[in-house]
């Protein structure tokens, strides 16, 4: 769904830019979108039982016009741009993988390990099941390294009612 949406957004920008050129106005400059949170995990196809509400966590340097079009395209899929995306904490060394490359936009997915660390550290109660599932499957070296660095105490995750 998301790749198609980014393609539609890119096409809309090309069309809008042509009109802006005709009118002698500045065009929309290339920008990036970083997909975070649950949406990044789902799109990464990681084998976890994931549940997500219809809000999408993204961070972008796009302008207001593009943001409005992005919101419109998301609403066609009954989805919403999360109003709190700018507040999402991600580890500073987070790696992003290229997910879609168009003429005006590059979209990246935050790598699963960093998303899981962000969730474990900032919203452990909400995400303890997904963290437990991931850890019980055998976590990657990268995840273990990050967990050590950010001093995540997994005792909190064992306290299930």
């Amino acid at each position, binding site marked *: 769904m998301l790749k198609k949406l980014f393609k539609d957004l890119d096409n809309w920008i090309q069309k809008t830019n042509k009109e802006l050129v005709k009118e002698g106005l500045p065009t929309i400059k290339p920008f990036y979108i970083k997909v975070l949170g649950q949406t990044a995990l789902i799109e990464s196809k990681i084998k976890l*039982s994931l549940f997500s509400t219809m809000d999408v966590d993204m961070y972008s340097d796009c302008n207001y016009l593009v943001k409005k079009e992005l919101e419109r395209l998301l609403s066609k899929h009954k989805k919403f741009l999360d109003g709190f995306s700018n507040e999402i904490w991600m580890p500073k060394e987070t790696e992003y993988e290229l997910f879609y490359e168009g003429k005006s936009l590059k979209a990246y997915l935050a790598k699963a390990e960093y998303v899981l660390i962000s969730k474990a550290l900032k919203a452990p*109660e909400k995400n303890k099941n997904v963290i437990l*599932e991931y850890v019980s499957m055998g976590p990657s070296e990268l995840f273990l390294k990050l967990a050590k660095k950010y001093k995540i105490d997994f005792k909190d995750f064992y306290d299930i009612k």
Partner: protein
Amino acid sequence: MISNRKTKNVFSKVSISKSDPRFVRTVGKLVGARLLESTTIKPFKGNVTLQDALWAGQFEPRILELIPAIVLKKRNLFQLKEPLPEDLAAVLQGIIHGEETKTFRGVAPRLYLQWVERIGHKGKSPSLLKTYRFSNEDVRLLNELKNRTTLKEIEIIRTALELFHQQNRS
């Protein structure tokens, strides 16, 4: 640090709860209503009670995030077989009266309130309940206007408010 054996034990308890029909049906119902996405559970068209949805919410807080808005704006999604639990009723009262609401079973107000405008009629907040005492003369006027105009009482009050607002625009 991570204890793999302990993690597996705890996770297996969670897994058992998540394979419970109450959990599967609740998530399936929400997936079918396009309020939730799941990588493992398919849409479910049968009936789900609010009690089962609240039970399932213990294992997935995203379900709890949606429940106040669903009860307010999409009332038929979950069957209501018992009176509303006190904590949920208090949250709903707060929303209806436009008052500050409390954390609902671990879910912060900003997380469940965001769905009130998104679920059901988009962008529409539920109407607020306000109570006033009218004098006999007020009631007589209201009845007279009701008989003369065939408008409902609330429509007359709204019209009067709108007129008063227009007259007092700065």
